């Protein structure tokens, strides 16, 4: 039954708030604040396409564990990550949010997005990045945190230009 798994409105609202905030911080390349939304067992995964494959046997665009993600962010923060100097002006629309509980205080959240990126460091073209996101969120003292962000780009198995910012 649909209603069996339906989250209370205030929980859904809280999740929605998380998703929008995460999107805005990524848009504005506010890496430090974005990282505060990340839990210790985070996996940040951008597979090729839908990623219906075993990560241990197949190559991805990004398959960062917490440690590599930490360094990816530090690298951006050096100010010398030339692929993002200056940072791309970006805005993304997020919609079609579906959320369901997976354990006590843990949620699986899926949504669609379209991201517009101005490639200000090179071509000055607007790049369009459409796709679907799957999050796994956990409620802890500081509020919701993510321990999975899987970004399934519609064109994720096609040639992609430099993608050094956070999707």
């Amino acid at each position, binding site marked *: 039954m649909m209603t069996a798994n339906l989250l209370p409105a205030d929980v859904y609202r809280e999740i929605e708030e998380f998703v929008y905030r995460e999107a805005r911080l990524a848009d504005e390349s506010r890496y430090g604040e974005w990282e505060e939304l990340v839990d210790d067992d985070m996996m940040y995964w951008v597979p090729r396409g839908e990623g219906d494959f075993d990560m241990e046997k197949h190559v*991805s665009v990004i398959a960062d564990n917490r440690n590599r993600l930490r360094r990816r962010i530090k*690298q951006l923060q050096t100010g010398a990550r030339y692929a993002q100097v200056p940072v791309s002006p970006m805005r993304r629309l997020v919609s079609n949010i579906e959320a369901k509980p997976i354990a006590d205080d843990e949620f699986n959240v899926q949504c669609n997005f379209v991201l517009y990126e101005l490639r200000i460091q090179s071509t000055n073209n607007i790049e369009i990045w459409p796709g679907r996101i799957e999050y796994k969120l956990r409620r802890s003292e500081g509020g919701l945190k993510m321990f999975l962000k899987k970004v399934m780009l519609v064109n994720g*198995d096609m*040639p992609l230009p*430099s993608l*050094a910012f956070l999707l």
Partner: protein
Amino acid sequence: MTSFASLIEPDRIHGSLYTDAAIFSREMKVIFRDGWAFVGHESEIPEPGDYITRTIGSEPVLFLRNKDGEVRVFSNRCTHRGNRLCHEGRGKLRGGIMCTYHGWAFSFDGDLLAVPYEGGFTKAKENYSLRQPKMASHRGFVFATYNPDPEDFYDYLGYGKDLIDKSVSMSPVGKIRLDSGWVKHLFKANWKMLPENQTDGYHANHVHKSFLKVFSSQYDELKTNEEKRVGSVVDWGNGHASIEVSERYDGPLQWLGSNEERYPEYVKAMNEAYGENEARKLMTEGPPHAYIFPNLFLGEANIVIIEPVAPDLSVQHHSPMLLEGVPEGLNARIIRQSEGALGPSGLLLADDSVISEQQQIALQGKSGWLEISRGVDRERLEDGKRIGHVSDETTNRGFWQHYLAKMNRSSVETPVEPELV
């Protein structure tokens, strides 16, 4: 009429080589159709009917395994009215190759087997086989050429043979496997910038400063000053070039950011296969960082294909070089290493591609001459190889001299003659 010799001097090259459309189409013919180019690795199509679609220059091709288990390369184009036969990047065919337009059917050897409504087509089917370039392979690396009378394959490969052998010898059974997929990285830049950058040892501590600040890795050596840098660059002839990075390492598996304690089964298998001394040397030096003219790059733990699309558009494909006969944990590590370095989000390559794009933008104007003289007075010759300081442009000069030798048979403005084959 401009000749290539007037655009390529020993220590400088003209910017129009990266932007001119006539030069690009000339390259597609002279270098990619008439010369040997890399198509794929046999391990990508393990079973009969398995196929991959690729390009050789601008020619779409089908890389396929036939019923007898032999690999084949065909133009991916129906001999009726030119429809593309296979549309997807990879797949499995059953029985034969069927054109989606009018249903002509071809065997896995390219023979035309049947045409629907035979009555109206009276010509001999034998003359309508799929176009098949000449093919040759070394250690599973398959190359092809559309030249009916090509250069001898091993003459073309030259020292590239040893470089491929060295990559493959990272496996205790001498076999690699490219079955973990390909990441495709778009460069809005000319294809020649990719090999030039891959074998450029000068940019690393500058372009990759952010990486070096954050990651301690085998690349730490790059932070030292000019006198203390170890390694070298080598022009192997035939346009092949490498950066020799092995001197950075003093123990097995450091090239993978690891060590021998973590992979005892691998060490044991390597010792048994090659003997302890040779195995230790192989595991310490790691796989080469070498470019094989025109479109293959042995990128340490990756196999990389350079695909030219247009004068200002290229794709760099990479697949982790997985090893046969090793514990799967080691291959998983190679996959993670690969994602860390290469591709659109690579901690290294995301920056390189943006630099290439900036070069391409800047060269659109009246670009004039680009300088590649660095180290011209301090390189040395050894067994037909030219060896330079790790930061020197020896590799770039080698690339361009070979390019010139290939191209100077033609003048830039000679139209590409249609081939009525």
